[in-house]
């Protein structure tokens, strides 16, 4: 059995890469993908600790998260399409109507 630290570090790395994507990209699609990376990082943690503690709860929650991520992508796709239709672009820096 691989030490738990490795998985936690992997999870942290994956999460921070996703975060890096969100912070540096302006394309809404890239947001979506970066969020998927972060969600996967979280699930890795859940699954790793499920094994570590010897209960299936982590896996059940992982399953939940997968389903939610799929739903989120479906919604995100709709939002991106609407964004594209209304603004002609999926650059998130263009829609600024909710600003002062």
């Amino acid at each position: 059995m691989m030490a738990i630290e490795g998985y936690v570090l992997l999870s942290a790395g994956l999460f921070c890469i996703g975060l890096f994507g969100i912070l540096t990209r302006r394309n809404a699609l890239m947001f979506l993908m970066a969020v998927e990376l972060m969600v996967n990082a979280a699930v890795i943690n859940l699954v790793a600790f499920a094994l570590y503690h010897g209960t299936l709860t982590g896996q059940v929650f992982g399953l939940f998260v997968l389903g939610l991520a799929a739903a989120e992508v479906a919604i995100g796709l709709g939002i991106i399409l609407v964004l594209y239709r209304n603004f002609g672009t999926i650059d998130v820096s263009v829609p600024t109507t909710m600003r002062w």
Partner: protein
Amino acid sequence: MMETAAFALFAAVTLTSAAGVVLFRDPWHSALMLGVSLLSVAVHYVMLTAEFLAVIQVLVYVGGVLVLISFAVMLTQAGETPPETATGDGEVTGR
């Protein structure tokens, strides 16, 4: 020992492909990289004795989410990149 080596290998694949997701300019490339990343995460699940989750990961993520993202890329990519950089890149014709 083998386990550790496998973990290191797939961790490298996961992280590298994840970095590719956020670093590639073309969203289409990013989407492909995302696929690689998700698959390698599935491998990690297997290693964590969560085979069921791994299967679901492959089915839902690689089979569903990635397809959806591909659709989004295709639908919106026509105007994403400026014309001068978009020439000959195939994003425009992808529409």
